């Protein structure tokens, strides 16, 4: 378990009055929240509630239409200059982006590269590591995810679970301070979900990487999270520690949602 963070310290992720619109469709509105360094925060809520959009905003795959996102106090894509919201240069955005990693629902391994090339490509060409150094680290990570023998395999010859484990190793090879996990087990066969969650649990236990997680695996969320945020309609409905969230949620909306995903009788009532 990570050490408790000093609440006075600068949060590693901070959303300030963030709005995200796609045309007329408002996905996130006036969103304020923060994540402290080393915290594991899970976002739950019905589909379309904006959870995945939050991860995509942090990864700069999307840009907020209003408000600010700060990473360790630094603006991510926009800052306020003389009262006006202006976009940062691509170079500035990239500097912050290298501190963030993401694992996707669909793995997104590069099919034109072997497993080891997938993992070492960015450490070598973006971080400037030597090939020997990057390869050593990649083999170490492959060992951690239990795929020592797959270094030279092609992604297409791997099962879904194996591909996702490679994708986790690939994200970790960049030594991110923040790891975003976007429904990483949703595309996997049920019997393989456990092996991937096991690896993520171990990473949570052995590192102090900040994690922002979107998942439908409620037991996993309960086990690894320091905090759970319940979303609905683009806003936070409830922000609580996992025990409170899953056993005694304060809001009717949360109770309804958890009842729907966990089944009747799973939630203790106050």
């Amino acid at each position, binding site marked *: 378990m990570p050490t408790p963070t000093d609440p006075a310290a600068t949060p590693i992720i901070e959303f300030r009055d963030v709005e995200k619109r796609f045309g007329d469709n408002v996905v996130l509105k006036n969103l304020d929240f923060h994540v402290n360094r080393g915290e594991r925060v899970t976002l739950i809520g019905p589909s379309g509630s904006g959870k995945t959009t939050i991860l995509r905003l942090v*990864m*700069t*795959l999307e840009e907020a239409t209003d408000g600010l996102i700060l990473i360790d106090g630094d603006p991510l894509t926009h800052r306020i200059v003389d009262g006006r919201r202006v976009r940062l240069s691509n170079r500035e955005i*990239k500097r912050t*982006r*290298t501190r*963030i*990693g*993401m694992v*996707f629902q*669909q793995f*997104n*391994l*590069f*099919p*034109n*590269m072997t497993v080891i090339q997938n993992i070492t*490509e*960015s450490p070598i*060409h*973006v971080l400037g590591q030597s090939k020997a150094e990057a390869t050593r680290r990649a083999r170490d990570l492959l060992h951690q995810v239990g795929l020592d023998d797959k270094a030279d395999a*092609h*992604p*297409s*010859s*791997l*099962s879904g679970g194996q591909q996702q484990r490679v994708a986790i190793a*690939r*994200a970790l090879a*960049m030594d991110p301070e923040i790891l975003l996990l976007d429904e990483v087990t949703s595309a996997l066969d049920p019997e393989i979900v456990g092996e991937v969650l096991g690896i993520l649990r171990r990473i949570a236990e052995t590192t102090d990487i900040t994690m922002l997680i979107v998942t439908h695996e409620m037991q996993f969320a309960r086990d690894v999270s320091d905090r759970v945020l319940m979303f609905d309609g683009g806003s936070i409905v409830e922000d609580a520690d996992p025990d409170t969230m899953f056993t005694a949620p304060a809001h009717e909306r949360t109770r309804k949602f958890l009842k729907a995903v966990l089944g009747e009788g799973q939630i203790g009532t106050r």
Partner: protein
Amino acid sequence: MLENIQATVEAWPFLARGLWVTIQLTVLGSALALVLAIILGLMAGAPARALSVPGRIIIEFFRGTSLVVQLFFIFFVLPQFGIDLPGMVVGVLALGLNYGAYAAEVVRGSIASVPRGQWEATTALSMSPVHRMRRVIFPQAWALMIPSLASLMVHLLKGTAIVSVILLQDFTFHLDQLRRVTDTTWAYAVVGLVGYFVLALALTLVMNALEARAKHRLGRGPSLREILSPTPTAKDSLSTAGRGF
């Protein structure tokens, strides 16, 4: 019949020379077309309008004007501005520009159809746009574009026949010479047909091999060596067994 064969054998040195000119035009024209297609295709697909707008204009211009007109323009009009190019260069230039503009659309379309998740993964790994294109997107788009490029190349091969209008002595030119001593049916329907067909077949085989190699690199389909080996080995059947666990 016998005289025709006789005449063809006698004309063979000329026909061979013509074939060689046609092959040169095809290979050099295709090479230029490919280079232009990649440049124009990347420009047209770029997010920056300063690149995409000029790219689009150039593509539409060379697609929208006919090859013969372009050929005449380079051969007859440019010399009046002091640009006097050898016939072979004119032929390669016109073929390259015309087919390059068509192929640019293939390049742009193939790049655009690489799945969005691949682009997003490169962002998550902080790759620069150039790095992303060179190492991730283009190698995947390449496998998608080869079949269309191959068919454009066969078109280009057949397009080379019109360069005889600028007095280049290609295969068609020598077929026409042969027609004078034999007859039209023989020269065009037999010698011409077989000549162009064999060239097109060779081109298609080369492009098929390129496609197989590109797909194998993406982990789809057997390697070229496996395709070409007459007896499948145990290793081959293993690797084609697909995604086993």
